């Protein structure tokens, strides 16, 4: 019995040169292409877990490794996608959020997106001090770019970058709510790449 417990505990320790990422998306579309691109990474062994929403099922608990980064993917054209991410957030431990969670938004350039929704996502990310990434999910270039950005955050969160910690990174990259008077056009500029360049 005690053996089994220690075994379980050892499972949750970080592996050598591995990183675990959890992609949460209610539509389960973009996460698949992202996952396929993420596991291509050769410098680090990346394990990807895909989920539609949180909480994660109990029965997988044994096999689930320690998660280094949780990514909430929100399709801005769908209110349901945002609501689902909001609901899932409640199942995360508050202590976990700093440096371990980021938001990825797709379809931000779509005309049918109400600006209110983007503001809501920004506010959510700012309140939780999490980075907010913008991604293009339709083109392969967009997927590659999104993967690159996620990998650079993931490497830090997994402790694979010397001299950088997740907490340190999050203080640099967390989303900020833009002041009200700025025109809507400017607000679409990616927040994440604005501040710091992330070439580790």
């Amino acid at each position, binding site marked *: 019995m005690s053996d089994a417990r220690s075994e379980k505990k050892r499972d949750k320790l970080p592996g050598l040169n591995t990183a675990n990422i959890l992609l949460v998306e209610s539509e*389960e579309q973009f996460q698949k292409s992202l996952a*396929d691109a993420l596991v291509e990474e050769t410098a680090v*062994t*990346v394990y*990807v*877990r*895909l*989920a539609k929403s949180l909480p994660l*099922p109990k029965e997988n608990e044994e096999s*689930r490794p320690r998660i280094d980064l949780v990514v909430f993917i929100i399709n801005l054209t769908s209110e349901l996608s945002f609501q689902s991410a909001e609901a899932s957030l409640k199942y995360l431990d508050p202590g976990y959020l700093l440096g371990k969670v980021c938001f990825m938004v797709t379809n931000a350039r779509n005309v049918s997106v109400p600006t209110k929704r983007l503001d809501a996502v920004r506010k959510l990310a700012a309140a939780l001090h999490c980075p907010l990434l913008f991604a293009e999910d339709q083109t392969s270039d967009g997927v590659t770019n999104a993967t690159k950005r996620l990998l650079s955050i993931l490497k830090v969160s997994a402790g694979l970058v010397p001299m950088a910690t997740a907490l340190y990174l999050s203080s640099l990259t967390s989303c900020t709510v833009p002041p009200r008077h700025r025109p809507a056009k400017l607000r679409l500029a990616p927040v994440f790449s604005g501040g710091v360049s992330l070439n580790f």
Partner: protein
Amino acid sequence: MDESKKRLVQRLIRRIPTKMLKTTLEKWGHLTGEQLRAMDSIQSKWALTESLLAICEENELAVKHLTELEMIYMIDNPDQGMWYAFQLTDPGDDAQSVDLMQFKEQFKSHLREIVRQVSVKIKKHTDEAVWIRIAWGDTYSRPDHLKPTYVVHYLQTPYVFVTRLNSKQKPILFQAMVLSTRYQYFKDANLSGRNLTAIRDLLMRKYQQVFPTKYPSPLTERKQTVTNPHVEREQAKPAANRLQMACEAFGGGTLPQLQSAVYKLETKFRDHTNTLMTEREEPFRCVVKFSSTNLLESLKNCASSGIASTPVTPLLSSIPLKGKNYFVITDNGPGPSSQRRQTQN
């Protein structure tokens, strides 16, 4: 030169795309090889019209030959305009034994009894379908070949598909149809769509159906593709479950293409706070219309991706189950109003 013939030729040439004209004319078989080659070399539609008119003069082709050409084109390309499905009910004793010749004769004679000026052309297509082209005229005018009604009937089945039918001619056609097929009644099947084969498949259940089962079928096991061992789905089980339920409701393979589904709600308004509406005598009316290029496929996707709750509400699943896409929901009807609201998500 007959004016009506000229206009018919003009219309035919305008409707048939240039790249399909050659095969259609070949099938028609009224042109000699030389004439076919001459037609093939012409590019502009205007010149084609002139040339076909000249050929008609030369080969002494009448309007009835031209209507045949139109039918050939229509049979090959039926997905134009809206098709409406109808169903014959209460078959007589000899309904099963009606053969094509008998049907042809009787349909024509029954139709002529009611309308004197009518031109009917019946052609049997390879897949058991009987195609009927009706050009209507009235007491004082000759049949109008520019606005024909097309009827497709499968012999020995109660299904009839109609396109471009005027409401004035509806009862006439129904009567002729009922009498010549030996059925008692003719009713609207509440199904319509742009794709004839789709609504036929839906009504005659000619699509791949999945039946409820507790055990996963070997089919789904085979479908699982080998994924990267580094990628794992946390909620694979519920997802598979949702897919199974969606397939049970909408079928497994490719689905017939439907363009819309309409739900008409006629119920009593119930709200304790709003007495004005609740006490009203007339029913509360509301119409919900779903439209898509492939409605059933999108509904199935909604259910399998979790956007619509599973098990699929009977209101949505009855589209393929009952073969209808127009529903009237009343108070005693199959679905209460609360269910309808769910489906809007």
